[in-house]
C-alpha cells in the first residue's frame, strides 16, 4: 500500500532503500539552540546535527541497547579531562573535524559557541550554573585545539552537564552573518541548520520534512550508520500508525498508549521496548492549600489507583515504583514511598487532616494523551476518597507561566533526569528554588544532605545519604509517584541498531536498515 504503488516514486528513482523514514509529531521550532528552540524535536535533532564534544556511551540492558549515562566519552573531541582540583577541565579538540563550509573546528569556535550561550542567558547558561560556570571568561582558549573550562567549584556532574551542553558552531561562518544589531547572528542561526555533527541537514521544508545525510567527514568513532534519514512531521498519531503499518515510514516517534500494544501484533512491525527512567508523578504544591497539609497529601497518595493506571494507561507496560528516586538510579530503596492504593486509608488520612472533603485543580499538559488518561483515572478514584479534582489541561505557554509562578497546586509531571544521580535529582527537584521543584518543597534536612553530597564522593556514604533522603520524602510526600513506564518504540522490522536514549533524545547515528 501507500507510496510503494506510487509510480512517481519510481520515476524519480524513489527513496534509496537505505533511507530511513521517521515520523515525528512536530517540526522543530528553531535551529538556534541558544536563543530559542527548546522543544523535544529540536533537542533530538540538535543531538544529531550539532557536533557535541562528548556524549554518552552505549551499554546493554537486557536485550536492548541503552545509552550509558555513567560512561561519557569524547566524540568530536579528543579528550575532556579535569585537573586535580576537579575545577579546571581541559577540552582537547580532534584535529580534522570539519564543518560543511570546510572550516576546521578550532578552539576559537568552542570559545565563541560558549560565549554565545552565556550571552543568550537561556538553556545552556542555566544548566552551566549547576557546575559553577556563569561567565564567558571562565572558558579560556589555550591553543588552537585546547580550551579550558574554569569552574567555580568542583562538581561530580561536570561530565554529565557538559555532555548535554558542549556543542560547537562554525564561528567563522557564523560571524559573517553577525551584524551590529545582531552580534550573535540570531536570524541566520534560526533559519540555517548547524553543520559538523553526525548528520548534515540536506534539505528542510519548514514544518514538513527534514532530510539528513550522514556526515562522512566525521573522524571519530561510531559514525552514522545510515547514509540518509528522512524525518517527516505527522502530527496525528493514528496517521503515524497507519503509515508504519503500511511500511511508508520505518520509525514512528509519536505513538503512545494502546497503539503500542496493538502494534506489537502487527506483521512487519516490531516494538522496541526498554526499561526507562521516565518518572510519572503528581507533584503537590506543599505551600498551597489543601496540599500544605501532609495528611491531605497522604490521602491523595492512598487514593491514586496505581495498578489500574499501569493497566489502563500503559497497557501494563510500566514498572511500579516505590520511591521518588527512580528505579535503576543508584540508591533506590523500596521504602521511599510506602503508599499504595487504599481508599480506606485515604479517607482516614483525610480525616486526620481535619477535613472530610477537599478540592483542587489537577493540571496536566493539554494534548498529552497519557497525562490526560492518568488525570481521568486519578480524578475518578480521588473523588471516592473525598478529594474533588477539577481537571485543567494547560497549553504550553500557560503551563510555563504558571510553573514559573509556582502556583499550581497539583500537576502531573512526566520526564527523565538527564543525570542518573540523586544529587542531580535533589538539585533539580527537591531543594529550595530548584527549577523542577514544582512542589515548592523545602526541608532543611534535605538541604543539608544536598550540601553534604557535593563533597561526598564515597559511594557507600552517598548511598547512606540517599537512604536518608528517601525516608524524609516518604514522610513528607511532596509527590505521588505513579510509575516508570517502559520506553517503547514501534519500528519496521528491518530497522536495527536502535539505542534507547536515557535522555529521550534519539541518537540516529546508531540506526541502520537491513534491506
Amino acid at each position: 500500500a501507500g507510496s510503494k504503488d506510487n509510480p512517481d516514486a519510481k520515476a524519480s528513482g524513489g527513496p534509496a532503500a537505505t533511507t530511513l523514514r521517521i515520523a515525528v509529531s512536530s517540526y522543530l521550532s528553531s535551529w538556534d539552540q541558544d536563543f530559542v528552540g527548546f522543544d523535544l524535536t529540536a533537542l533530538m535533532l540538535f543531538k544529531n546535527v550539532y557536533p557535541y564534544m562528548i556524549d554518552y556511551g552505549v551499554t546493554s540492558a537486557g536485550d536492548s541497547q541503552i545509552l550509558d549515562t555513567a560512561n561519557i566519552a569524547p566524540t568530536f573531541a579528543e579528550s575532556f579531562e579535569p585537573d586535580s582540583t576537579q575545577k579546571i577541565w581541559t577540552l582537547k579538540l580532534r584535529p580534522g573535524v570539519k564543518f560543511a563550509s570546510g572550516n576546521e573546528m578550532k578552539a576559537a569556535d568552542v570559545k565563541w559557541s560558549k560565549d554565545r550561550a552565556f550571552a543568550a542567558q537561556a538553556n545552556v547558561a542555566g544548566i552551566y550554573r549547576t557546575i559553577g560556570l556563569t561567565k564567558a571568561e571562565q572558558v579560556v582558549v589555550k591553543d588552537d585545539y585546547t580550551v579550558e573550562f574554569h569552574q567555580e567549584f568542583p562538581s561530580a556532574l561536570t561530565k554529565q552537564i557538559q555532555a548535554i551542553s558542549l556543542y560547537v558552531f562554525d564561528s567563522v561562518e557564523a560571524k559573517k552573518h553577525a551584524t551590529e544589531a545582531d552580534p550573535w547572528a540570531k536570524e541566520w542561526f534560526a533559519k540555517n541548520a548547524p553543520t559538523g555533527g553526525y548528520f548534515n541537514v540536506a534539505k528542510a521544508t519548514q514544518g514538513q520534512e527534514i532530510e539528513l545525510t550522514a556526515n562522512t567527514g566525521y573522524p571519530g568513532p561510531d559514525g552514522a550508520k545510515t547514509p540518509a534519514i528522512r524525518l517527516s512531521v505527522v502530527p496525528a498519531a493514528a496517521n503515524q500508525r497507519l503509515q508504519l503499518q503500511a511500511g511508508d515510514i520505518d520509525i514512528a516517534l509519536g505513538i503512545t498508549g494502546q497503539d503500542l500494544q496493538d502494534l506489537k501484533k502487527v506483521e512487519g512491525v516490531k516494538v522496541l521496548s526498554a526499561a526507562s527512567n521516565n518518572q510519572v508523578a503528581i507533584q503537590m504544591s506543599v505551600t498551597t492549600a489543601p496540599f500544605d497539609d501532609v495528611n491531605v497529601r497522604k490521602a491523595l497518595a492512598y487514593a491514586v489507583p496505581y495498578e489500574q493506571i499501569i493497566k489502563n494507561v500503559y497497557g501494563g507496560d510500566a514498572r511500579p515504583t516505590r520511591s521518588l528516586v527512580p528505579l535503576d538510579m543508584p540508591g533506590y530503596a523500596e521504602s521511599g514511598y510506602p503508599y499504595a492504593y487504599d481508599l480506606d486509608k485515604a479517607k482516614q488520612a483525610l480525616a486526620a487532616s481535619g477535613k472530610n472533603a477537599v478540592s483542587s485543580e489537577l493540571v496536566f499538559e493539554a494534548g498529552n494523551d497519557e497525562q490526560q488518561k492518568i488525570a481521568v483515572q486519578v480524578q475518578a478514584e480521588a473523588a471516592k476518597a473525598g478529594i474533588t479534582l477539577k481537571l485543567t489541561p494547560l497549553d504550553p505557554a500557560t503551563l510555563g507561566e504558571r510553573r514559573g509562578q509556582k502556583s499550581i497546586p497539583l500537576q502531573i509531571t512526566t520526564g527523565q533526569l538527564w543525570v542518573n544521580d540523586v544529587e542531580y535529582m535533589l538539585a533539580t527537584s527537591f531543594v529550595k528554588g530548584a527549577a523542577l521543584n514544582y512542589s515548592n518543597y523545602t526541608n532543611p534536612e534535605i538541604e543539608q544532605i544536598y550540601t553534604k553530597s557535593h563533597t561526598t564522593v564515597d559511594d557507600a556514604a552517598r548511598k547512606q545519604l540517599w537512604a536518608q533522603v528517601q525516608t524524609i520524602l516518604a514522610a513528607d510526600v511532596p509527590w505521588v509517584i505513579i510509575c516508570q513506564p517502559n520506553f517503547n518504540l514501534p519500528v519496521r522490522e528491518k530497522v536495527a541498531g536502535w539505542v534507547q536514549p536515557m535522555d529521550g533524545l534519539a541518537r540516529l547515528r546508531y540506526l541502520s536498515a537491513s534491506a
Partner: protein
Amino acid sequence: MAEVQLASADSVPVVSGARDGRFANTLIYVGSGILVVAALAAIFAPLLSLWGPTEIDPSGTLAPPGGAHLLGTDGNGMDVWSRLLHAARIDLGIAVCAVALAVVVGTLLGLIAGYLGGWIDDVLMRIVDIFQAFPTFILALAVAALLGGGFTNLVITVAAVNAPAYARLVRAEVRTLREMQYIEAAKTSGASTLGIMWRHLLPNSLTPVRVIAPLNCGWAMLTLAGLSFLGLGVTVPTAEWGSMISLGTSDVVAGRWWTSVPPGLALLVCVLGFSLLGEGLQERADARRR
C-alpha cells in the same frame, strides 16, 4: 373530450409552479423527529444507562460491546453508551444556547444598525466586520484559552463566532423592510422609533433567522466538535461527542470502532437533523415566497 395531462414541470419549466411542499414537510418531520429523539435521550440519559458517564469500570478498558456495556468501554474504561447519551446534553445544550445567544445579540445589532443607519450603522457594522473577519478557530481558541473550557464559556465562544452572521442577515432584512409601506404607515400613525423597531421590524426581520438558526445549530455542533478535537472544548472526562471522537481516533484505526464511531454517528445524525429541519424550513419559506 379527451383529457390530457400536460407536459409536467420536468420538461417544461413553468411559471410559478408551486411545489407541493410535501418534501419540505418530510424534511421538517424527519429533522425534528431526530432532534426530539436526541433531546429525549439527553433528558432521560440517567434512566437509560446503567453506568455514570464518567464512571470507570475497574474491570478494564476498551471492552467490546456486549456484556455489561451495551457499546463497550472506552480507553478510560468508561461506558460508551452512557457517555453517548449524556453527551447529547452538552452538545445539544451548547449548540442551542450558543445559537440562541448569537441570534439575540446579532439580531439586536442588526436591528439597530439597519434601522438607525448613518454613523451608528457604520460603526456597528465595522465591529461586526472585525469579528467576522477574525478567523473562527483562532477566536474560539482565544476565548477558550481566556475563559477555559466550561459550558458557559463554550456557549460564549460559539455565539461570538456566529453572531456577526445574524447581525448582517437582520440588518440586510431591516434595510429592505424599512422601505416598506407598512413602516411608513406606522410612522404616519405616530409610532415611535423604538415601537417601529420592536413591533414592526423585529417580528418581520426574523423570518430568515428562523430558517438559518437550525442550520446554524448544526454548524455550532461541528465547531464544538472541532474545538474538542483540538483539545479546547469541554475538559475530559466530560462526555461530549467531539472529544469522544477525537479520543477514539486511534481506536478506529485498530478496528475498535465502538469508541468513536457511535459518537461520530450521533453527531452526524444530530447535525443532519438540524440541517434537514433548516432545509425544510427554507424550502417552505421559498414556497411561501412564491
